């Protein structure tokens, strides 16, 4: 069978095995007759043992033996000694079978069954395991059984931890042992066992231990994977936290029903045009959570009753967990000033995907000012188009800098109580950083560089809220660039990391962020103070990130980058104008995140690669054609079935039907021929302008 050595048989061996096969056939016939007639005599049971010794995979025979054991144990004259001897027999048969094939599922399973009856000694089991684990230290059946025995026979995790240590000293490449270590430590942390109350003491020792393996041979992969686990343990706080929100604490939000507001009175950062009668409240958590609802998050304000607020997760999938949650608060009809208080986590129910409760209740409040529509301008605003040309942007001067200072500082929610608890984490990371710098000074090692980059990023993220700057971003960017050259097969991966770090850097201070803020004002606009546009163009970004700091953005210029994906952009609920011109988007389905942006009115996806590739790799996620539920799900609107062109453009329909666009630029994509454009116009009847042309 698989994985066991095979040799060409010699003639005499062949003869022997023919005889063996005949013997087996005879045994089998007899066995089936015993089994089917429920005969459990000593002779019959012994025969099944013989069969199993030859073929341990004969699961029918294992089940027969279970029935036989039950039969014996139900006898009226059954006493403890008798039970023990029956069960010992079983263990003996299993052991013989395992000698023949130690990867037999049936044999290991039978042993578990026998053990679960009690009456067996743990020492015996450990002796047996030692024997098998010596023969094959990676056998996962044996490791599974070991975990089973340790748990059911109450062997302490500490002892088992010692065992993995011994195994690792024998062979530090034995990843199964490292893995079991991670399982045991997780259990000990969870139990808060003595000596494992906090990770603070344990993890530094683990780092020491893993260094021995990594420094001995940096090319051995086992150690690096365990290191990755340690890093995760160090960085991840168990309970989820609220990372940021929109509106932020202390915001003055101006809701303007008319797009052409004369902005001098309002901060361009916090004035929001709304024609839908509501505005979004966005919660951004540091990890995906579930259970955000009107019972776990309370919103108190003068004009709205909390209970009709519906919180929705924002994620690409349909899952009920997400990092970002949004609810839409209705705007009161009259001119009004009102304070809104949002508190999260005062009652239980927000839970991370890893099962930890949101345990740091937090509260933020903001003011809402409503500016009613000025009728005279309404016609103008409808006809107005937005053109993201260079000449329409003015550097956003210091004129009202205080507004962004205020909003910037209010972006992140501080969790003061975390700071002291986290000291050991930063210390552990600092120590690791030093250690890997040393390793890299001795040799050039790409995994070492990658690990160092990860450590530095983790360190920066952890200390950021207090230090308010990213100390190492330059170094990380350099490491990423290095790795792109060193390891071209994974170029794209490093490029993505590079993009993420760059974005973190840009958004890390108000000075750097202000350099990217421009005031939009075109020649025909009647507004005196135009909206603020965040321009992250020409940065050769391959991926978008740092969303938690960008929730306020309404106008975003990502043109002239190398974006293939805009995953995560759904978090930017206020976006009304977005340019993705000159990127590398390859399919319509790559636009999926935009479906969740209800305020988006102007979109520029011109000069991408949509339609260049005959086959769209991203297609399959749309209503999952691979799923068994396909067919029951009915996307087929009447509009589709009645119009052949729409059936042919199923994806376009799926993506664009939820859009609420006034203006779309799609020129410069293979897909965008006249026929396709006419389809778009059908799908989006509200569209007013397509590729610069006004639609009738």
């Amino acid at each position, binding site marked *: *069978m*698989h994985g066991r050595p095979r040799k060409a048989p010699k003639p005499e061996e062949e003869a022997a095995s023919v005889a063996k096969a005949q013997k087996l056939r005879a045994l089998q016939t007899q066995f089936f007759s015993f089994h089917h007639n429920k005969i459990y005599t000593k002779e019959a049971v012994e025969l099944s043992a013989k069969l199993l010794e030859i073929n341990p995979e004969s699961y029918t025979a294992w089940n027969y033996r279970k029935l036989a054991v039950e039969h014996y144990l139900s006898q009226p004259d059954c006493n403890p000694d008798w039970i023990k001897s029956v069960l010992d027999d079983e263990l003996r048969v299993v052991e013989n079978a395992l000698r023949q094939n130690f*990867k037999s599922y049936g044999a*290991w399973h039978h042993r578990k069954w026998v053990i679960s009856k009690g009456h067996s000694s743990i020492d015996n089991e450990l002796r047996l395991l030692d024997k098998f684990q010596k023969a094959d230290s990676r056998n996962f059946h044996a490791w599974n059984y070991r975990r089973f025995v340790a748990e059911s026979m109450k062997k302490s995790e500490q002892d088992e931890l010692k065992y993995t240590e011994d195994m690792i000293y024998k062979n530090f490449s034995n990843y199964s042992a490292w*893995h079991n270590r991670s399982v045991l430590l997780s259990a000990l942390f969870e139990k808060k066992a003595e000596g494992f109350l906090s990770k603070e003491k344990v993890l530094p020792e683990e780092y020491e231990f893993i260094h021995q*393996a990594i420094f001995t041979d940096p090319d051995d992969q086992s150690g690096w994977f365990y290191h990755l686990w340690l890093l995760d343990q160090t960085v991840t706080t168990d309970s989820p936290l609220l990372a940021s929100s929109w509106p932020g604490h202390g915001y003055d939000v101006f809701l303007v029903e008319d797009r052409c507001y004369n902005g001098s009175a309002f901060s361009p950062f916090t004035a929001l045009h709304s024609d839908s009668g509501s505005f979004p409240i966005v919660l951004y958590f540091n990890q995906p959570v579930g259970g955000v609802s009107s019972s776990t998050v309370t919103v108190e304000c003068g004009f709205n009753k909390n209970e009709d607020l519906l919180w929705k997760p924002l994620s690409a999938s349909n899952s009920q967990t997400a990092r970002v949650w949004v609810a839409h608060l209705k705007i009161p009809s009259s001119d009004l000033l009102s304070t809104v208080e949002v508190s999260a986590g005062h009652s239980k129910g927000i839970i991370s995907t890893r099962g930890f409760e949101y345990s740091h209740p937090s509260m933020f409040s903001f003011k809402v000012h409503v500016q009613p529509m000025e009728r005279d301008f309404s016609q103008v605003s409808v006809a107005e188009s937005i053109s993201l040309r260079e000449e329409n942007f003015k550097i956003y001067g210091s004129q009202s800098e205080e507004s962004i200072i205020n909003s910037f500082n209010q972006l992140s929610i501080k969790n003061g109580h975390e700071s002291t608890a986290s000291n050991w984490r930063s210390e552990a990371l600092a120590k690791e950083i030093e250690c890997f710098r040393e390793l890299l000074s001795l040799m050039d090692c790409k995994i070492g560089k990658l690990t160092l980059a990860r450590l530095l990023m983790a360190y920066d993220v952890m200390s950021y809220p207090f230090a308010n700057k990213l100390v190492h971003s330059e170094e990380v960017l350099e490491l990423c660039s290095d790795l792109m050259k060193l390891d071209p097969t994974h170029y794209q991966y490093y490029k993505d990391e590079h993009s993420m770090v760059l974005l973190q850097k840009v958004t890390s201070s108000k000075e750097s962020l202000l350099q990217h803020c421009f005031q939009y004002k075109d020649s025909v606009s009647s507004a005196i103070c135009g909206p603020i546009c965040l321009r992250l163009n020409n940065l050769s970004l391959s991926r978008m990130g740092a969303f938690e700091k960008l929730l306020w953005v309404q106008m975003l210029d990502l043109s002239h980058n190398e974006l293939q994906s805009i995953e995560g952009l759904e978090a930017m609920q206020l976006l009304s104008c977005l340019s993705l011109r000159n990127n590398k988007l390859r399919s319509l389905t790559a636009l999926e995140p935009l479906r969740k942006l209800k305020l988006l009115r102007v979109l520029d996806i011109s000069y991408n690669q949509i339609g260049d590739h005959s086959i769209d790799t991203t297609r399959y996620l749309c209503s999952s054609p691979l*799923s*068994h539920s396909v067919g029951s799900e009915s996307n087929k609107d009447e509009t589709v079935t009645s119009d052949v062109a729409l059936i*042919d453009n199923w994806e376009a329909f799926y993506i664009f039907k939820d859009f609420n666009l006034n203006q779309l630029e799609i020129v410069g994509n293979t897909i965008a021929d006249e026929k396709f454009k006419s389809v778009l116009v059908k799908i989006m009847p509200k569209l007013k302008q397509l590729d610069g042309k006004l639609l009738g």
Partner: protein
Amino acid sequence: MESFRSLTVTQRDQILVEQQVFDIFKTFYNLPPSSQSFMLELQRENHVEYLTKGLTGLGPSFCVLDANRPWICYWILHSIALLDEFVDPELENNTIDFLSRCQGPNGGYAGGPGQMPHLATTYAAVNSLVTLGGDKALSSINREKLYMFLRQMKDASGGFRMHDGGEIDVRACYTAISVASLLNILDDELVQNVGNYILSCQTYEGGISGEPGSEAHGGYTFCGLATMILINEVDRLDLSSLTDWVVFRQGVEGGFQGRTNKLVDGCYSFWQGGIFALLKRLNSTKEVKPIPLGDGEGSGEESPQTTTSSDAAGEEGLNGDLSLGGSHSEIGDQHNTSSQDNVIDIDHNHSKGHANVEPLFNSLALQQYILLCSQELNGGLRDKPGKSRDHYHTCYCLSGLSVCQRSWLEDEDSPPLPRAVLGPYSNLLEPIHPLYNVVLDRYREAYEFFTKS
């Protein structure tokens, strides 16, 4: 550091395998082009001969597989189908009759006549019958009883048991769901909580283990991922860490290992390679990228490697007991709904350069490993040089090869470009449905048959 100074057993074994493999590659590169192309040729006739012989009679050394007889049928029939060959009508009839005798009175298929029904052999039997195709084969499956059997195997926890009183693991979930899906008897009762069980098996490495607490493993990762796709809950998995995990499993030899730091093995060409075929269909808006930690996708000369490997003699594929499966995806049909406007000259991609129809693994390196290191010239394929051929490895090496040859394509209905197929173009195998691992045409026939009935 004292204690770790010398090479570990794992590292020594790995070095030995590498030497063997690199010797083969070196010999190959020093050959004149004509001999090179001979070495890269898939020995179709010899493989068919080896396989057909296995179907008519097996030597006595096969008695350890006595509880796995439908598996032998599946490995052989599927391999033959991949090679686009047929078995003769009498043999076909005998096979159908034999499998009918394995079918239990209360549904499901056993490892052999008289044994109890078992999920893995049920999977193998159903896939065999689908691979044979035709009314006789397909109608021999008692779907009502089989459904009852699946319900009996369902555990309260959501997982499935392999057989009455048997073990619960990811294999069992996969084989149950795959069979139900293929036979069009999948319903909410069967699906309920299966996703929770699979989720509990995804480890921090990103891959999926056989049971909770165990380490990630190629075969189980395939099974878990395919199951989640079949029950439409794949979004619940951490797909990006799963991708990170699986891209690491390709070593400098070109082939895949099954777990961290184990030796390369030809059968993972499918278990791991098939994962890429599934991921390719899922990659939504996100481009899933390999995390480079170690070996990544090396092809021979490149990079000092990190794959060291296994300790003792044994690797485990999920021998005999699991295999893989498919879904109700009308992969083919869906293509018709795609935008006509998208259909453009495929050479266009070429001019765009790196236009990213590229697979996430090194497909040519894997094909090279399969053809040069796993193939026995006189028929049959194997784990690695120095091991002997068997039907299991033949089946999964060929399945992996088929996946590889189409790894640039999304559309199984169009033939791949010659440069995607290593060796002569005649090496091209039939396309498979990656969720079930049956040849695509046969899947379609079965799909139609079971949709109607």
